[in-house]
């Protein structure tokens, strides 16, 4: 192996074997890299060598691609550094929202990355058909936001979110690809000095990226906002500028409001998209999970002036904003993972109809304490309305009022003292949208709670424990089931007075 000659990408041919990978066919020829479909030259797994045990599922080998950078005679160090970054970051990533990393090849011989091949087309194909139905845009939005949150939690800001870098698994999850411009907050930034021009793709680049700031995960939310805008309206909010002065326009001028171009875009969606496109990252959603949450809970989006906006930006505001951009620098304490830790989603699962008053109060106190120590946190208050597994449910009370509405009223009543305590001392009252209310209808409370927490990327569940032994023995413990089945932290609260 050591004596193998140095190979150049141009010399790679179908049928060739490189470090045990057989090059089957070249599937893509790009400006920066070529892609090859590859297989293991020799069967690597014993599962194939030995006959599978009766009844066992035969192991399906993961389809693989090899990405090989195009090195153009040394004139383009950016391509090489981008590939170096990707070789550094990909092995550090895991989960369904990224292609599985398999192997990498040394720059001293032949640089490559072998990774899982994600079947299907990128999101780019859908963009050619924009505008798309609102439902589809929203679904794409929350799937991509969910993937971005997972990436940010793994310390990485993507910094080149665009349709051609997003794929979907057959199971539905969005997969992010191409980490050549990404930044890992626990690894050196190899691109720091590399470029004289802003790094990214013109239409999608956030204002802070244009100002050479590379550590803010909210940059990816801006890019997602650009994509959602495009999918809803069929147009790009800031065009496709090619010059730096063209790029900088987005620092001073707002995009035309989506509803001006697409009148049936719901106000809540315009609110969400324009929030993503805010120039200052502090005014966007603070995490991708918070954005995904709004896209899945449209009735909980608090509408502001953004929802009804029609006009662009006045000349005076353009001038003001131009001055505001002078001297922008990377902020201390902003990084992909920090941002997700500082802005958690808290879920209070409250059995408003059955729990003892003392327990309800104890849960509320716990929630309040957590919110006070986490100024960036959001609280979702959740009650589960039990339905029958089979047959029709009574959805109205004896007096004709809706059970669902009554439960919501009780839930809001439960939360009021905590909400008031939080709003006290804030000059604008409680930050809009920080507390939301949800009533779910489900036969099994524990399943409903864990499902909701998983879909909304909840970080911490707070709930009460049934105090009376009899009921718990008879019905089982909802909290115990939530604790054992949830992926996030769960705090189970007891009312101290009942423990005698």
């Amino acid at each position, binding site marked *: 192996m050591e004596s193998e000659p140095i190979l150049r990408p141009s010399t790679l041919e179908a049928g060739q074997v490189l470090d045990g990978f057989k090059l089957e066919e070249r599937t893509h020829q790009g400006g920066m890299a070529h892609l090859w479909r590859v297989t293991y030259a020799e069967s690597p797994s014993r599962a194939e060598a030995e006959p599978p045990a009766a009844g066992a599922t035969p192991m399906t080998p993961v389809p693989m691609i090899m990405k090989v950078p195009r090195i153009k005679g040394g004139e383009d*160090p950016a391509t*090489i*550094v981008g590939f*170096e970054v990707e*070789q*550094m970051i990909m*092995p550090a990533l895991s989960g369904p929202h990224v292609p599985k990393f398999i192997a990498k090849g*040394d*720059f*001293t011989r032949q640089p490559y990355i072998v990774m899982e091949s994600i079947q299907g087309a990128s999101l780019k194909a859908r963009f050619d058909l924009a505008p798309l139905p609102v439902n589809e845009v929203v679904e794409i939005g929350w799937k991509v936001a969910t993937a971005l949150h997972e990436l940010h939690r793994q310390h990485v800001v993507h910094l080149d979110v665009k349709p051609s870098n997003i794929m979907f698994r057959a199971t539905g999850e969005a997969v992010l690809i191409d980490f050549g411009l990404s930044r890992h*907050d*626990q*690894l*050196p*930034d*190899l691109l*720091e*000095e*590399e470029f004289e021009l802003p790094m990214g793709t013109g239409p999608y680049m956030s204002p802070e990226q244009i100002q050479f700031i590379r550590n803010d995960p909210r940059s990816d939310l801006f890019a997602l906002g650009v994509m959602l805008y495009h999918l809803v309206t069929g147009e790009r909010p800031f065009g496709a500028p090619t010059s730096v002065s063209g790029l900088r326009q987005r620092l001073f001028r707002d995009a035309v409001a989506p509803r001006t171009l697409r009148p049936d875009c719901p106000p809540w969606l315009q609110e969400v998209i324009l929030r993503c496109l805010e120039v200052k990252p502090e005014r966007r959603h603070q995490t991708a999970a918070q954005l995904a949450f709004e896209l899945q809970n449209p009735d909980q989006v608090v509408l502001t002036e953004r929802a009804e906006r029609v006009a662009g930006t006045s000349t005076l505001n353009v001038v003001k904003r131009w001055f505001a951009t002078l001297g922008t620098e990377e902020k201390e304490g902003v990084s992909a993972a920090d941002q997700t830790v500082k802005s958690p989603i808290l879920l209070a699962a409250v059995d408003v109809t059955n729990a003892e008053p003392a327990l309800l109060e104890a849960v509320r106190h716990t929630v309040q304490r957590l919110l006070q120590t986490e100024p960036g946190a959001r609280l979702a208050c959740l009650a589960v309305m039990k339905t029958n597994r089979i047959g029709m449910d009574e959805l109205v009370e004896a007096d004709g009022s809706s059970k669902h509405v009554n439960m919501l009223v009780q839930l809001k009543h439960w939360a009021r003292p905590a909400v008031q305590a939080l709003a006290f001392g804030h000059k604008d009252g409680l930050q809009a949208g920080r507390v939301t209310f949800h009533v779910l209808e489900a036969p099994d409370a524990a399943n409903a709670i864990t499902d909701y927490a998983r879909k909304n990327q909840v970080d911490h569940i707070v709930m009460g424990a049934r105090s009376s032994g009899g009921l718990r023995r008879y019905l089982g413990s909802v909290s115990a089931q939530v604790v054992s089945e949830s992926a996030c932290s769960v705090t189970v609260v007891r009312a101290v007075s009942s423990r005698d």
Partner: protein
Amino acid sequence: MKLAILTDLHANREAVTAVMAHARSHRAERYAFLGDFVGYGADPGWVVDLVREHVAGGAVAVMGNHDQAVFQGPLPTMIPEARQVVEWTRAQLNSKQLDFLASLPMSVIDRDMLFVHANAWAPKEWAYITSRMDAVRSLYATDARYTFCGHMHLPMLYHLTSTGKTGDFTPSQGVAIPLSEQRRWLVVPGSAGQPRDGNPAACYAMFDTASATLAFHRVPYDLDAAGAKIIAAGLPLRLAQRLAYGE
């Protein structure tokens, strides 16, 4: 091969004991000691013996300015408290230990790795690497792909491309960093015996030569005991206090 790199041990027996135990539990197979084995702390003899035993077993060790001062006499540039410690330390060491310090090389090259206390451009002058510019100067002064140096007491990682682009990075504890073969690297593991970045836990680095990955580790140790010994030895009180604050 997993190589543990310790520097600026400064006669801190408690810290060095904790670091060596951590390195062993992380399967270190080889050791490099980048100088300043003595000075500031109360256990110079114990630390010199430990380094000496490891060198006999194949470890790398290079000379630091405090080691030189102890067998040569204090330098005129030394601050008074350092000068006092140098004289006290000299009195603690036997001739074998002093001879060992005097015999240390200024730098060692092992394959693609350079080990040196202060910098690569003039190891005997003890200039500090405090910026990217200094790091680049050092990286241009050697052909080695990896430079390991101490002297700074702050963990730091610098890199340089063939096109002259550079970067610096303050490492996160325990994260494995792949060191790309596309650039050259300068590694400052931080001080084992007297950290100065505000975190009192002892520093060292572990380099896996097979996978070219580097991890900076922080190891808590009994700094109260180390401080008490400094006070009991009659050394300046501030030397005990600064261990507690990591400054």
